[in-house]
C-alpha cells in the first residue's frame, strides 16, 4: 500500500524527467528511419527500425521467437537457482565464521576472476553436450557474485545487533533468523541482481557457441545468414529480458524489505 503510494508520488514528481529518455529514444529511432529512407545509412548494416519491427513480429507470429526465448529463460533461471542458493548459504557461513573465511577465501579468489565461458568445453567433456553442461556453466557464473554479496552482507551487520541478540538471550538459530538473515537481505538481493546479469551474459555466450536453441543461437543464425534485422531483433529481445529481470527484482525488494527507508 505504502509502497504504491510513494511510487505514485515519485512518478508525479519527475514526470517530465521520466518521459525524457523515452523521447530521446523515439528521436533516435526517427533519425535512424529517416537516415535509411534518404540512403544515408546502409540497410544491410542498419536496417530501418520498421524492418526490424517487422522481423520481430514475424518471429512472434511463427512462434520461433518464443521457442528461443523460453530456452534462454529456462537456462538463466535454472542456472541462477542452481548457483545462487548454495552461494547464499555458503556466503552466510563465510560471513559469520572467520575460520571458514580463512579456508575458503583463497579458493574464491582463484575461482572468481576465471572467465566462466572458458570452462564450458571442459564441462561438455564431463557432462556431455546436452542441457546440463550449459546450465552448470551458467550456475558457476551466477555463484560468485551471490557468494561475495552474501558474505559482505553478513560482515556489514552492525555488531550492536549481535549484542542485542546476546543480551536478550537469543539462541544461535534465533540470531540467524532474527538478525543475520533479515540484516543480509538487502545486500543479498543486490547480489542476486548481479548474478542474474552475469547468468544472462553467460547464457547468451553459451548459446552463441554451443546450442541449437536460445536467443544467442537466434543471433548467431541471423549473422550466418546475414539477416541483420533479425540480429537486431535478437539483441532487442535480450535487452528487454534484462530490463524485465531488473524490474521484477526491484519490486521483489519492496515486498521483501518493507523496513527499508524510502529513498
Amino acid at each position, binding site marked *: 500500500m505504502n509502497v504504491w503510494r510513494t511510487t505514485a508520488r515519485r512518478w508525479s514528481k519527475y514526470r517530465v524527467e521520466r518521459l525524457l529518455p523515452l523521447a530521446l529514444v523515439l528521436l533516435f529511432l526517427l533519425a535512424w528511419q529517416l537516415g535509411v529512407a534518404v540512403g544515408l545509412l546502409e540497410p544491410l548494416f542498419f536496417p530501418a527500425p520498421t524492418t526490424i519491427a517487422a522481423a520481430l513480429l514475424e518471429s512472434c507470429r511463427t512462434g520461433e521467437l518464443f521457442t528461443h526465448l523460453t530456452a534462454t529463460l529456462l537456462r538463466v533461471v535454472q542456472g541462477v537457482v542452481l548457483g545462487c542458493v548454495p552461494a547464499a548459504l555458503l556466503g552466510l557461513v563465510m560471513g559469520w565464521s572467520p575460520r571458514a573465511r580463512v579456508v575458503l577465501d583463497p579458493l574464491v579468489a582463484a575461482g572468481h576472476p576465471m572467465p566462466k565461458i572458458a570452462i564450458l568445453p571442459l564441462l561438455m567433456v564431463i557432462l556431455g553436450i546436452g542441457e546440463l553442461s550449459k546450465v552448470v556453466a551458467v550456475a558457476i557464473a551466477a555463484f560468485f557474485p551471490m557468494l561475495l554479496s552474501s558474505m559482505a552482507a553478513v560482515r556489514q551487520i*552492525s555488531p*550492536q*545487533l549481535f*549484542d*542485542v*541478540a*546476546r*543480551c*536478550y*538471550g*537469543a*539462541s544461535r538459530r*534465533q540470531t540467524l533468523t*532474527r*538478525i543475520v538473515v*533479515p*540484516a543480509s*537481505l538487502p545486500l543479498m538481493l543486490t547480489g542476486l541482481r548481479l548474478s542474474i546479469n552475469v547468468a544472462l551474459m553467460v547464457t547468451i555466450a553459451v548459446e552463441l557457441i554451443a546450442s541449437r536453441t536460445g536467443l544467442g543461437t537466434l543471433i548467431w543464425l541471423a549473422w550466418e545468414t546475414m539477416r541483420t534485422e533479425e540480429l537486431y531483433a535478437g539483441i532487442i529481445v535480450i535487452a528487454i529480458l534484462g530490463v524485465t529481470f531488473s524490474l521484477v527484482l526491484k519490486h521483489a525488494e519492496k515486498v521483501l*524489505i*518493507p*523496513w527499508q*527507508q524510502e529513498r
Partner: protein
Amino acid sequence: MGFALEGIGREFVAGGRPLVALKDVTFTARREEFISIVGPSGCGKTTLLRIIAGLLRPTTGKIVFNGTFSQGKLRSALVFQEHGLLPWCTVLQNVALGLEFIGVSRPEREAKARGFIQQVGLARFERSYPHQLSVGMRQRVAIARAFVADPEILLLDEPFGSLDAQTRLVLQEEILRVWRDHRKLVVHVTHDIEEAILLSDRVLVMSGRPGTILEEIPVPLPRPRDLYSLDRPGVSALKWHVWNLLKSEVRTSLGVAE
C-alpha cells in the same frame, strides 16, 4: 537480585598499545535499587555496563551475583544509546523480542508487549517500523522492550543521550513512572548530573580513563519523584558536589590544563 563488582579492570589493545579502560572498579548494587554512574566521556562507563551485561569479560576482578535466579528469566537486559532496535521488526515485534527469545508463545508475548506499548503512549505505532518513528519514540520502544523482557537487572547506556532537552525531560519522568510500577535493579550510565540525581538512589562518580569509582553519593530525595523533585533543598548542593568531583576529570579528558 543484586551484584557486587570486585576489583574489575579491563584493558584493550588499541593500535598495538595496551589501553587501560577500567581499573579496580568495586561497588555493590542491591535489589530494586536505581544506580546512576556519571563520568567524563571515554571513562569506560559503557565498557563497565557491557561487563555487567556479560557481553565482555573483565581482564581482572570478578562480578558476583547474589540472590536467586528465576528460571527462564533474563539476568540482565541492556538499553543501548541508539540503534538498538531491529529495523526489520515492527514496534510490537521489537518490544516482544526478549520474550520471543526466551520462548514465550506469540499471543502471550504480544499481549504483554501491547500493555507496555500503551504505557509509553505508542499504541498507534504498534505496526510501524523503527525508521518511521522519531528518535524519542524509538528510545521509548527500546525502554519498553527492556521492561517487557523483565530481566533481573536493567542496564541503561545513556538512553537519553541522543534526545533533545525537552524529549529527555518527558522520558525521564516516564522511566520514573515505569520503574515505580515495575521495580527492579537498574544501573544507568549518563553524563547528565541532574538526570543522575533525579532518577537514582545512589550516584557513582567515575574518574577519567582509566575509569574507577571516585565516590558513591546517596541521593536522599523521597520517592515517588518527578521533575519537581529537583527543586527540593539539598539538590543543588548535591549537584555541585558531583560537579566538583568531575570537573578536573573532564578537563583532563579534554587535555586542558588546570
